């Protein structure tokens, strides 16, 4: 398989014209002495190479008809997402385990349910991109929720100790902080939904319309994926904060995590 098999010469010309924008930005950066020319060049080349490899890879994947390959690829995506999220959550006890449980359970539950109910066709060209969107969002929400909860705990050690000393269970003592963290982590998702169609046209819908799909069909598909993301994000946020909470306390309901 070569590049011409995935991109037509016509599309390549379009891409070359669009690349002029990058050159203009680099020139502007040079004139304004922003010292970003090499960064911009590397980022542009990386984006080109990565997306071309992805396109080639997806073509191979889409030709695979066995479900097991799709499952393996989704599982690999979830593992990378858990690893990425755990790296951002350094210093948190059992961070990889916490992130992996959150991302695997939330993404799998939603993807499997949607496929089982026939909302999403059981085909690679649907499952891989849509699954990727769900997993990517679950990854971001997991990092956000964990970071927020860690910050809340760091700032409220005394409150937790006071609650425990009054006879609260660890769950009762940390609940107000978990609630705050879950709500805060979901704000971007909920705000995105509120402004969708007013302030911005979501990427999936834009892509489908550009690809020639009827706008109302594109809107329906966009709504499906948004609902999937909201559900998965909510589960990921609750699970990650619950899992983190467990690892902060000892068996005698005492806070063992000290920043």
């Amino acid at each position, binding site marked *: 398989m070569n590049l011409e098999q995935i991109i037509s010469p016509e599309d390549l010309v379009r891409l070359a014209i669009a690349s002029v924008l990058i050159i203009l930005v680099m020139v502007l950066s040079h004139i304004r002495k922003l010292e970003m020319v090499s960064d911009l060049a590397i980022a542009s080349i990386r984006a080109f190479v990565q997306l071309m490899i992805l396109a080639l890879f997806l073509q191979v994947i889409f030709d695979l008809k066995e479900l097991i390959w799709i499952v393996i690829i989704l599982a690999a995506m979830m593992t990378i997402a858990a690893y990425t999220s755990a790296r951002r959550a350094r210093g948190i006890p059992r961070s990889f385990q916490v992130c992996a449980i959150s991302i695997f359970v939330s993404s799998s539950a939603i993807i499997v349910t949607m496929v089982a109910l026939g909302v999403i066709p059981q085909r690679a060209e649907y499952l891989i991109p849509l699954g990727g969107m769900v997993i990517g969002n679950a990854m971001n929400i997991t990092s956000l929720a964990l970071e927020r909860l860690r910050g809340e705990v760091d700032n409220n050690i005394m409150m937790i100790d*006071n609650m425990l000393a009054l006879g609260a269970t660890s769950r009762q003592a940390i609940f107000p902080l978990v609630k705050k963290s879950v709500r805060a982590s979901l704000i971007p998702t909920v705000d995105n939904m509120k402004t969708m169609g007013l302030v911005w046209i979501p990427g999936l819908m834009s892509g489908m319309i550009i690809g020639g799909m009827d706008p109302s069909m594109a809107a329906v598909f966009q709504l499906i994926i948004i609902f999937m993301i909201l559900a998965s994000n909510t589960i990921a946020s609750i699970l990650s904060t619950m899992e983190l909470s467990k690892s902060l306390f000892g068996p005698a309901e*005492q806070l063992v995590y000290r920043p």
Partner: protein
Amino acid sequence: MSPKIEAKNVTVRAGGKEILHQVTTEVPENQVFTVVGPSGAGKSTFLRTINRLIDIVGGDIRLDGEPVTALEPVILRQRVGMVFQIPLPFEGTVEDNIMMGPRLSGSKEPDVGELLDMVSLGRSFSDRKASELSVGEQQRMCIARAIANGPEVLLMDEPTASLDPESSRKVEDLILSLSEGNLTLVLVTHNMDQGRRIGDWTMYMRDGRSLTTMETGEFFERYQGGIA
């Protein structure tokens, strides 16, 4: 009479360091037991081992002869209340704060007015926002909050250290009045004069060790010139 609390060879480690080294002492029932010593002696750590906010790695702590590890932590902390150095009001009114313990455990709700009278705040404080009280008033509210669970023992970790002299004196008076009831008080203080004023028994700690435990009068008589 058997002691209310017995600590035997209590050892605590944290971060590879020994914070408490084989602390052994006995706290008599319905007395004010003060723990004195310089900063970093392990006084607060010792206090927290009694209600298991910190777990020990060696030794044994008993409440009425029963190992504290045999009790459900939540039940233990209802029986052994605690007041911290810096008062921390929860969100809501003074009443919300005082009711927190009984509401968490689902036990019988106490008479808030009676508790407010006991800590000399007065019943009119009940509906006031807890965060708007002065630090001294907040500390007395925290004492009422701890007593609302009906504990048998009250642990107090430097309860007057963050207060002005006037508020400090009021809290000391409150501690003395509490000691007249059926309550065993374990008070950590770095203020020797305070220990002398309100303690019945004194344990002196240094470098994570308990150097001596004796009646307060005898302690200050014997160690007027300091402990070598």
